[in-house]
């Protein structure tokens, strides 16, 4: 009996003594045989769909680079393969910060690639600043990110203003009688949405399309019927929307259920994933979505990347993967130029650096670490993405007919 009691006490003590130091000491120490790069990615939560494409692009870029022998690092006088370590931000800002902590302290990474949501990247960049870890960000409003004045984070994307200009450019090339008379915006109420809404307000004045309604909703909202009713009552004929894929699917379904016959429906962030089109089926026709990249762009490797994506996704294409893919290409060039894995020296190569031959063309960062990339517009049509902006002669924008006429 006594031995049993002793055994139990011993077990309790061992459990206490082992459990906590284990968390501190079990981290693996990696030698310089590979380049460890951390990745914060929305694997779960409301942005999981867009996160999945970003994850695929990072993995594909690393696969292609490693297939060529890896990255030459002068300090070690050899080519080294890249190893990506992913951490889930659960589509939440605080979890983005926690993911950065895990990457830095548990996985011991000194270079981190970003997720695709502005608030999450800002929260994660704040942590990276504390520990002087280089954070290579993409798909985050360049102006909002730039306002934070981060010293250890760069950003490649367009600004909310640049993106907000696109629908007005599209309308301007249409015949005057076709152009929308009563446009409205419905933005998610968060930094992304606020920045975007400001852009639309300014651009609508600049291009002479005054907004008939200016609305914001809480991300994750389940019922849009009150907004839709308001749009119907005000005779809105064009709606510009920003939301996650799940919110976007919900919105379009409720627009159809409520028979809101808007002629032009343009969505950012949530409208472009292939899952969006698959979820809505034929109802996705006529919908316009944003894009950061297209395989038809005349850049080296763009077509091949598009084909690889289609091969892995049963023929479906992507308008996002080129951006994170190019981010890895930029990072690799920066590592090679720095000749070391020191995060400060790699960052110095990116800030003010020029990078040629990426799948997004030649990219140039300014001295603050900000890099402009193009914003596109495409229309879903029978499961395909048709280019709307920049305008191409082969395709003409299709205005949405009434739901009962489809």
């Amino acid at each position, binding site marked *: *009996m*006594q031995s*049993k*009691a002793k055994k*139990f006490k011993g077990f*309790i003590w061992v459990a*206490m003594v082992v*459990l*906590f*130091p284990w*968390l*501190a000491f079990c*981290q693996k120490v990696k030698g310089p045989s590979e380049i460890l790069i951390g990745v914060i990615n929305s*694997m*779960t939560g409301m942005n999981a769909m867009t996160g999945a494409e970003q994850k695929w692009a990072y993995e594909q870029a690393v696969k292609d680079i490693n297939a060529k022998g890896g990255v030459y690092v002068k300090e070690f006088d050899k080519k080294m393969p890249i190893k990506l370590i*992913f*951490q*889930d931000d659960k589509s*939440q*800002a*605080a979890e983005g*910060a*926690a*993911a950065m*902590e*895990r990457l*830095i*302290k*548990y996985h*011991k990474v000194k270079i981190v690639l970003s997720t695709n949501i502005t*608030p999450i990247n*800002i*929260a994660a960049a*704040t942590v990276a*600043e*504390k*520990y002087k870890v280089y954070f290579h960000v993409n798909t985050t409003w360049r102006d*909002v990110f730039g306002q*934070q004045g981060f010293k250890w984070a760069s950003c490649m994307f367009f600004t909310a203003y640049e993106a907000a200009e696109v629908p007005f450019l599209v309308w301007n090339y249409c015949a005057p009688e076709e152009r929308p008379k009563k446009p409205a915006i419905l933005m998610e*109420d*968060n*930094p992304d*949405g*606020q920045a975007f809404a400001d852009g639309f307000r300014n651009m609508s004045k600049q291009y002479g399309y005054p907004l008939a309604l200016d609305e914001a909703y*809480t991300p994750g909202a389940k019922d849009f019927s009150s907004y839709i009713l308001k749009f119907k009552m005000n005779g809105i004929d064009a709606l510009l929307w920003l939301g996650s894929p799940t919110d976007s699917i919900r919105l379009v379904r409720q627009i159809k259920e409520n028979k809101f016959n808007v002629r032009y429906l343009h969505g950012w962030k949530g409208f472009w994933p292939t899952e969006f089109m698959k979820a809505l089926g034929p109802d996705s026709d006529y919908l316009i979505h944003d894009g950061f990249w297209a395989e038809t762009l005349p850049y080296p490797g763009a077509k091949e990347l598009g084909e690889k994506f289609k091969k892995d996704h049963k023929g479906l294409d992507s308008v996002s993967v080129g951006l994170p893919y190019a981010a890895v290409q930029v990072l690799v060039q920066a590592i090679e130029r720095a000749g070391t894995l020191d995060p400060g020296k790699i960052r110095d190569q990116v800030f003010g650096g020029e990078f040629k031959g990426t799948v997004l063309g030649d990219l140039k960062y300014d001295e603050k670490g900000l890099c402009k990339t193009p914003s596109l517009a495409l229309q879903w049509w029978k499961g395909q993405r048709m280019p709307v902006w920049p305008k191409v002669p082969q395709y003409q924008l299709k205005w949405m007919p009434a739901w009962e006429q489809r």
Partner: protein
Amino acid sequence: MYLNKIEKRIWFIGLIITIIFVILPLGIDVERSFLIYFLFITFINITLSQGWNLVAGYAGQISLGTHLFFGLGAYLTAIVWLNDFFGIGVDNYYFNPVLIILSGTIPAGFAALIGLPLLWRLRGDSFSFGTLAVAYILTIFAIKLRKITGGADGLHLPSIVYESMKPYYYVSLLIAIGSTILIYTIAKSSYGLTLRAICEDELSAICHGVPILRYKILTFAISAFLAGISGSVYGLYLFHINPDSVMNLNWLFYPILICVLGGIGTVLGPVIGSFVSTALFCIGDIYFRQLHPLFSGMLIIIIMKFLPGGILQYVKYLFIKYSKEV
């Protein structure tokens, strides 16, 4: 008699662990250690959970507004700091003890204010939903009052002041110990006994002359105070306060889960629950990245299935069993 003996042993073990925690940063690289970050989050969870434990476990009032007080604490810290309300210069707010205490006191006052109508008229589920509704309204205010709260983008504190994880670690440890001692003191006092009476049978407590509204409001305020100071310290760590980060529903679910897991209505339950659940979440996040909700959820179901009274109850059962055998 057995329980007293067990409690003494548990407190003795707790004391030794506390001493280990105090000296731990002396032996490891605080800035690069994941353990320090893990313990910081655990200590924050302990303080937050002790607050919820007091109001739900001891007084029997299931509050669903913990995230509101947590967020309020974080926002107050940021607003006071950025606007230099104390007039001491913006460089002097980082870990200012008065600021942290104030960030707990104002949520406590606010809890007393909303507690009056909520606890006076609403009982059981109605009270729970009442607190959830207030939290939802305040979250909307946090988004809409852009001039004060920075709207959905929130408030950015100057992260340049950051030098080390040590102050985060020690301050969070201090408030975790303080909150545990506070709950222990309450549990052992006549106040704690009154809360038990309210929890068991409100009508009976009223019939015995207990001014239940006063006790319930006081308990709700203490709970909000603990949530507020933990929110303040977490806000100082995050440097970016917005509704998504500090008024997220996670800050409501975590304390509930922790208390249920560790042992609701006990002093050490939230402590044990915090360590176990934070460790489970960390392991899930690190090793089961895309599957972590599944992994964490399964483990929680298993623990709750086999340990319905929480881990602490099982530990006590084992102590009694082996002590009898001895």
